[in-house]
Structure formats: C-alpha cells, structure tokens
C-alpha cells in the first residue's frame, strides 16, 4: 500500500494555498467594472410595506440603481422554493408561504431584504441604502415559539401559523406500552436556536454577458449545481445552460451555505439589469440576521421502561420553529432527519413522534451541522440518562441492556430506518476505558474537596448520513435526487483529473478524494487532481451536506474508477494480444495472467489516446463517469463522554475532558477525520454551554454580533480525546459512513448529562450559562 493511499494520514494539499494567503474566496474575486450591492433590510419583525421612496437614494453619488421586490417580480423572478414536501398526518400538504427574494408586500423578520442599492463603491451603496425611505405599517409579530399557533396569522391562508403537523410511528403500540410500564421518565426541554456563523460571511459576485445571455455567479455555496438548478427551474433567473455557478474556496458552511438565498439571487439579477458585474458580501451583522439559523425546538419526551430497565416505548412531541419562511430544506430537518433517528442505538420496540412545525417572525431555520440528528440525540440521550438516574441503574449499564446487538443487523427500527451495521457496546466500552470511568468517584471527591461540583455524562448517538436512496426520498417528498456524480478523466500521460459533484469547504476533499483514486488506480497521489465547485467544469452534483461526501461522492469515484479499469483491461488486452478476461489489474499494472506480459497504467493511458489499430468496438480515450445512488443511509454511531467541573460560587462550567469514540466505518484519512470530530464537538459544546440565538419579545435579534452571541473560543475548550471503532458500512464500496457531524450530534447531550449530574438536577436549559447554573444551584 502506498503511503498516500486509503487509511493514511496524508497532509492536505489545499493547505498550501491557505497558509500562504493564496486561497480564493468569493470576496477575493473582483471583476472589471464591478458595482457593489447593499441590501435594505427590514427593521421590523412584521410589517406591511406601504411605500418605498427611493428617489433620494437614486440621486445619491455613485448610485447605479435601486431596486425593490416589485422590480424583480416584474422581470419574472419567482419565489425561492422549499425542496422537500412534507405531509401532515391528515394527508394534507405542508403550507408554503411565498418567499420573494426581495419582500414585496410584507416583511416578516428583522433583516429581511426588501430593496437593493447598486453603486460604484461599497461606501456609496451603503450611504444610499440609508436614504431609502420606507413607510411601514407595523403589525403585531409572532415571536414566541410556545405561543406561535395562538398568535396573529403571519401568512395569508396559513391557519395557526402551522406549516404541518407530522407524525411517525405506531401511536397505539406506544400507548399500550406506556400503560404497562414500571417506570416512565418524562422531560420537557428546548433545543436552543443556534446561528451557524461560518467565519467566511456569505457573498456573491455576478456577471452577465448580454450578447450571449450568460450569467456567471461566484457564490459561497455548498452545492453550486443545486443553486443553479433552483435559480433556473424555480426562480426563473436564467435557463440552466446559460447560468454558470462557481463556488470557489468557501470558508466553512455547516449547512448554512446549502440554501439558495435572496442576496445572490438579487445580485445576479441586478447584474443583468444594470449590465455591470455586481458584488455583494455580507457583513457579520447581516449574517446574524439573514443566514438560516438552526435547531429551535420545544419538546416533551417520555420513555417507558419495565422493571428490569428494558425500554418499552418512547413518546415525543415537538414543536419546531421554521422562522418566517421555508428555507430550502427546512421542512425535512425536524421530520425525516429527526423523527427517524429517535430509536438511537436501542431496541425500543415502539416509538411515536409528532412534530408540529410553525412559522414565527424570525429568521428562517434550516439545516445546521447535524440537522435534526442532534435534536433527536438530545431527546434520546437525555431521556436515557435521566431514566438511569431515576431508576438507580448505572447509565452505562442501562445502555448496555438496551443496545441493538451486533448480531441483530440489519435492524429495522420502529421509525422507518434499517440500520445496516454497528457495534454500540464496543464504542461505549472503549470510551469508558479512555475516561477511566472507574476512577470518576475519586475525581469527584477531589473536586468536592476543592469546593467544586463534578459531573460525567454520556451520549451514545446514532446518525443517518449520506441521505438515500433517491427513490425513497422522492417518495417521501424530496425534490432532488440524493446520488452523487464522479468523473475520472485519465490524461494521455497517465495523470488523472477527478471531477466530483460534492463540494469541499474545509473537509479536505482535494486530498481525500485524490487518496481514494490514487489507491484505486495505482497512480501516484501527486498525479491525481481533484476538481469541484464549478457547474462549468462538472456535469452535475448535489454538493456537500449530511456527512455524505465520501460515502456518496467517494463511492461514485470508485464506480467510475472501476469503469476505467475495465476499459483499461480491454485496451491492454488488445495491445498484449490477449483476452480482457485474462488481464488482471493491480497496483497500477495491467498484466496478462500466467504470462510475463504487462503494461503500466501510463502506457495504457497513452495508448488510449494514440490508438494504434484499435478494433471497431474499442473507442479511443479513457474517461468515465458514474452517478452513484446509495441503497441506504449510512449509520455512524459512537459514544461521547463529557466530564465537567462546576464552580458553585460563579456557576461557571468548565469542560474538563471530552472523550469521543466514533464508528465511522472505514476511514480514508484519519487526520482529517479527527479534525472533523474536533470541530463538531466544539460546535456541540457551544450549543450546550455558550450559544443561543435570542429574539426579544418585540422580535429584535439581541444576539446579533460576536459580542452578544457566544462563540466557542480556544480558552473555552479542552483538548479532545478521540478514537474510533470500525464496523464497515455494508452497502458502499468504501465501507465508509461519514464523520462530519458526529461531534455536533453527540456532544450537547453528553455535556448536559454531565452538567445535570454535577448539579444533581433533573434538567437544565441549554446553554448552561453561569447564570442558569448558579440559579439552578440556588434553587436546589
């Protein structure tokens, strides 16, 4: 095996440009003659737009144009769609309020754009935006999630602000199980609203060529083809073949850059309207107001156990906040990515979940790292830990009693998933050993002797990654397929250019995917180039979300490479005067079995493009594509353990240790996987201890900057102790499962289980701020 193949800690090739300042992010791109866009945003959470007077703004120095939602509508620009149709339990379709890119009649959250100013310089655009005079009729907003259905109706025709009322599972079986339960654990909690905050703000640079009617849109997208598809098919910006979307280097996404937003839509349209390249870059304040937020659930959850501690049933009722409009995939997050995960790692035979999704006058809520699965894990793992405490069973032991066992796979859960493989106890035992579980009581004594409280908490999470298969998802309402494309183009000299429809914005695909193809084709790592993020260079792709890239995108490259090998065998057989079936391929050499005749990969590649005497049925060239559509989700799982120390005087929680033992199946690059886990844990710990997106009663976002929204900083976190166990995925050719979200999924429950253990309270709201912890201790 090469030292840069699958399983090796290969240093990232993309780092060279990033550590020398040569990355090329959207805001780094400047086009000749470009003008700058600044959006005029609603100061009100809910208001009717009576008049917009842009006359002063239009006369301001440097202004190229001022445009409103009516201008876009008059030009045929349509509403931004939601890509997943969820049905309510009564069979009715979810309610979809129209979301014009720029608001036309009403504004429905603070920060919603309703006009755009285009000017020669950014300063001039900003100054002119302040001159747009708008007469609003303020309307009573709906801010509280708890009271959303009783509030004024936000959107015409959408009663009780309810988008859908969805359910999954066998309610009768659950009710029967609860009726005979020896113990019921019940919790009511919120899953706090988070604001993703990739450090690169969203941005767009758009240009339009009038003679060819072609757009080029550089934008901070996790999935440029999806952006193009939506802008072409639904928004009517341009025909798909006249629109090129390029996602250059993208500075983090965490889900928030999956979606199609008003700003890049309006900027691209304005490029055509003004016949100028148009650039827009969000400042951080705009990002806080207008990026899709995450989470924001209110949940009542119950777990029924028998006298032996066996889980009998689970009942979950959740109200999910969608914000003011349906963002691109918002509807799927609290349903198919949440309810389906409530079995966790356990054999709970009956589960029923109801999810009521509602609109409020807040920023749209959509997928954020983990997307539904952190919320599900929080429900399951807070319930299990609490049940253990209430019944006096060790929390590790209670989990052992209820784990799905290795010999029970494939395992069909009562909430519609079929787990293909796993070994949950293996990760638990490894994590227990790592944290020195037996030594915890002694560590607690040491803390207590120093006047501190110490707690330990578990989270045995499961996630479903690599959403699939397309057929099932489309039946369930998805508006897109869930495959991924890959192309392996062998150049005449034997080097390889790989095209992947998956997108890298920090995940290191340029390295990982080169390892995969290098390993598979036996060509040097340095000879494999990876191209992504440009609809002009790739056939199609669905981008990066849901920890899918290696499981789905990497598998597509394996399938395409298989085709390369198959064709290479035919070429080699022709050249070596043998039959293709007699040619073996190994480590970059085509060899005729039981002979000494062989050709290198490079020789075959050259012959493919300099085809001497090829038979009629053998085409020249060596380039193959694959669209890989997985048969099932993958199911990464693991055990996270948090240990915290609390100062009762100040309420400050210090995360002392965090152990994560994850089963991601096979691992392509352990260094990159560990990095993904670290980052996910930091975001999960952020949710548990620091982060909270808060609107005040009047509907203003009070956590609208890094001064008010508490991002995890280096001194808030310990070093993490991460390890893996391996049960290879059974249905993709790499045996991989995905690692991008595990930390964010597992960590919140582990940390809150540790905090509540330290405080000896049943529950505490996230984030466990010093104030909340201090108050809880005073009340205890």
């Amino acid at each position, binding site marked *: 095996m090469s030292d840069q193949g699958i399983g090796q800690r290969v*240093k990232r090739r993309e*780092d*060279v440009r990033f550590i020398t*300042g040569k990355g090329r992010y959207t805001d780094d791109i400047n086009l000749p003659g470009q003008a700058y866009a600044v959006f005029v945003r609603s100061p009100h959470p809910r208001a009717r737009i009576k008049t917009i007077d842009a006359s002063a703004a239009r006369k301001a120095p440097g202004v190229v144009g001022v445009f409103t939602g009516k201008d876009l509508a008059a030009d045929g620009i349509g509403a931004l769609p939601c890509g997943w149709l969820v049905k309510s339990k009564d069979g009715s379709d979810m309610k979809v309020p129209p979301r014009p890119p720029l608001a036309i009649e009403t504004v429905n959250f603070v920060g919603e754009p309703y006009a755009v100013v285009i000017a020669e310089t950014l300063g001039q655009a900003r100054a002119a935006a302040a001159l747009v005079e708008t007469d609003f009729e303020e309307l009573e907003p709906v801010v509280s999630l708890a009271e959303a259905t009783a509030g004024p109706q936000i959107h015409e025709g959408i009663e009780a602000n309810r988008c859908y009322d969805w359910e999954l599972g066998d309610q009768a079986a659950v009710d029967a199980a609860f009726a005979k339960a020896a113990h019921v654990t019940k919790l009511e909690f919120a899953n706090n609203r988070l604001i993703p905050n990739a450090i690169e703000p969203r941005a767009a640079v758009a240009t339009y060529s009038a003679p060819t009617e072609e757009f080029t849109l550089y934008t901070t997208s996790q999935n440029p083809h999806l952006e193009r598809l939506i802008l072409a098919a639904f928004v009517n910006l341009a025909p798909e073949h006249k629109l090129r979307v390029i996602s250059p280097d993208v500075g983090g996404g965490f889900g928030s850059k999956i979606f199609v937003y008003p700003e890049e839509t309006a900027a691209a349209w304005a490029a055509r309207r003004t016949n100028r390249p148009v650039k827009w870059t969000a400042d951080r304040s705009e990002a806080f107001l207008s990026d899709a937020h995450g989470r924001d659930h209110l949940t009542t959850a119950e777990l029924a156990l028998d006298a032996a501690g066996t889980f009998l049933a689970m009942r979950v009722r959740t109200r999910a906040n969608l914000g003011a409009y349906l963002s691109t995939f918002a509807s799927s997050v609290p349903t198919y990515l949440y309810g389906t995960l409530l079995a966790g790692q356990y054999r709970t035979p009956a589960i029923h979940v109801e999810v009521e999704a509602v609109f409020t006058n807040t920023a749209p809520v959509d997928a954020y790292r983990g997307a539904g699965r952190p919320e599900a894990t929080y429900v399951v793992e807070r319930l299990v830990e609490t049940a253990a405490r209430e019944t006096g069973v060790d929390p590790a032991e209670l989990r052992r009693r209820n784990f799905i066992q290795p010999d029970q796979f494939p395992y069909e859960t009562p909430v519609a998933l079929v787990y293909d493989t796993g070994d949950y106890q293996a990760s638990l035992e490894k994590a227990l050993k790592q944290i020195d579980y037996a030594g915890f009581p002694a560590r607690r004594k040491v803390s207590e002797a120093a006047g501190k409280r110490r707690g330990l908490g578990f989270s045995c999470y499961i996630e479903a990654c690599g959403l699939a298969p397309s057929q099932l998802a489309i039946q369930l309402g998805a508006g897109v397929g869930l495959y991924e494309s890959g192309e392996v183009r062998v150049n005449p000299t034997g080097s390889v250019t790989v095209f992947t429809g998956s997108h890298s914005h*920090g995940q290191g695909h340029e390295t990982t995917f080169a390892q995969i193809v290098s390993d598979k084709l036996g060509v040097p790592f340095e000879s494999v180039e990876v191209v992504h993020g440009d609809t002009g260079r790739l056939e199609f792709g669905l981008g990066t979300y849901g920890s899918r890239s290696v499981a789905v995108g990497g598998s597509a490259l394996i399938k395409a490479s298989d085709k390369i090998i198959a064709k290479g065998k035919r070429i080699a057989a022709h050249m070596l005067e043998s039959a293709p079936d007699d040619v073996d391929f190994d480590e970059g050499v085509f060899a005729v079995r039981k002979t000494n005749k062989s050709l290198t990969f490079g020789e075959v590649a050259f012959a493919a493009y300099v085809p001497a005497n090829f038979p009629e049925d053998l085409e020249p060239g060596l380039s193959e594509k694959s669209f890989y559509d997985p048969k099932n989700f993958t199911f990464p799982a693991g055990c996270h353990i948090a240990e915290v120390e609390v100062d009762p005087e100040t309420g400050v929680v210090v995360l002392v240790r965090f152990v994560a033992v994850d089963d991601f199946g096979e691992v392509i690059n352990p260094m990159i996987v560990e990095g993904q886990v670290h980052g996910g844990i930091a*975001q999960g710990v952020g949710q548990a201890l620091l982060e909270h997106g808060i609107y005040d009663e009047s509907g203003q976002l009070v956590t609208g900057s890094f001064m008010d929204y508490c991002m995890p900083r*280096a*001194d808030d976190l310990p070093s993490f102790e991460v390890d893996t166990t391996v049960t290879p995925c059974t249905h993709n050719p790499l045996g991989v499962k995905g690692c991008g979200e595990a930390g964010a999924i597992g960590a919140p429950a582990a940390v809150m289980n540790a905090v509540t253990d330290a405080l000896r309270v049943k529950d505490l709201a996230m984030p466990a701020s010093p104030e909340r912890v201090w108050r809880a201790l005073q009340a205890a």
Partner: protein
Amino acid sequence: MKLSLTVNETAHELEVAPNALLVEIIRGDLGLTGTHVGCDTSQCGACTVEMDGRAVKSCTVLAGQAQDARVTTIEGLGAPGNLHPMQTAFQAHHALQCGFCTPGMIISAIDLVKRADGRLDEAAVREGLAGNLCRCTGYHNIVEAVLAAAGQM
C-alpha cells in the same frame, strides 16, 4: 489623504480616504486578499496582521494610523519552499480546515510565541488565541501546531 507604508517589504505611497481602514487598504488597494474580514466588531481576528512588530486587527486600525508603519500580512510570511515554521506546523498538524481564519490565526500565533519568550503551555496558547475565532477545528490542532512551532522559532 496620502499614506506611506511598507507592506511585506514593499514601500507604498497611496491616496486613501480619511476613514479607510487598514484592512481595506490591504485587501483593496494592495490586492492582498489573504487577509480576511470575518466580522464587524473586532471579535474574530481573521484580519490580523503584524504592524511594527505587533499583531493588530487590521479592521480596527485606521489606514492613517499605519503611516510609515511596517506591515506583514500572511503573503509576506513565507512562500511554498520557504515557509515560516508556524505555516509548516499548521499544515503538519491539520490546524486548518476551511482556511478562512488561518491567516489571522497564524499571525496571532507568531505574535503569541514571540511575546511568550519561551514560556508557553496549552493553557497559555488557548488564552493567547482567544481573540481569534475558528469555527472548523475546535482549536485542538491549532493548539498543537502553535506549541510545535514555538519550539522551532
């Protein structure tokens, strides 16, 4: 107003607006886009550059304050084949993912090592880098990289 400053060993004479920020000069006038802007409240540190021997957040420095200053941005630190030990350590320890915070993080880290005068441990690195936000790495590998580079600077 006129501004004279030296950036990455190159002297510049520029005509700038009185309210221009140093980061705007660096990214705009000089086209050095390795220095990034991640916030508007001086909280994230993505715009950190070295000015007259100290790390500064260039979004919080008026261009006029940089009169006659010597500024080093990430582009002036080292190029492939001749990298600064901190750049090498960031790659070796996988201390970056999306790369957006990286230039500011590297400049801050170098400043931290210089000021620490050989007395750096994990806690000091964590405290010293608290002015630079990273959303990708969880800081784990950044801390490792800084400690490793500190031994080689």
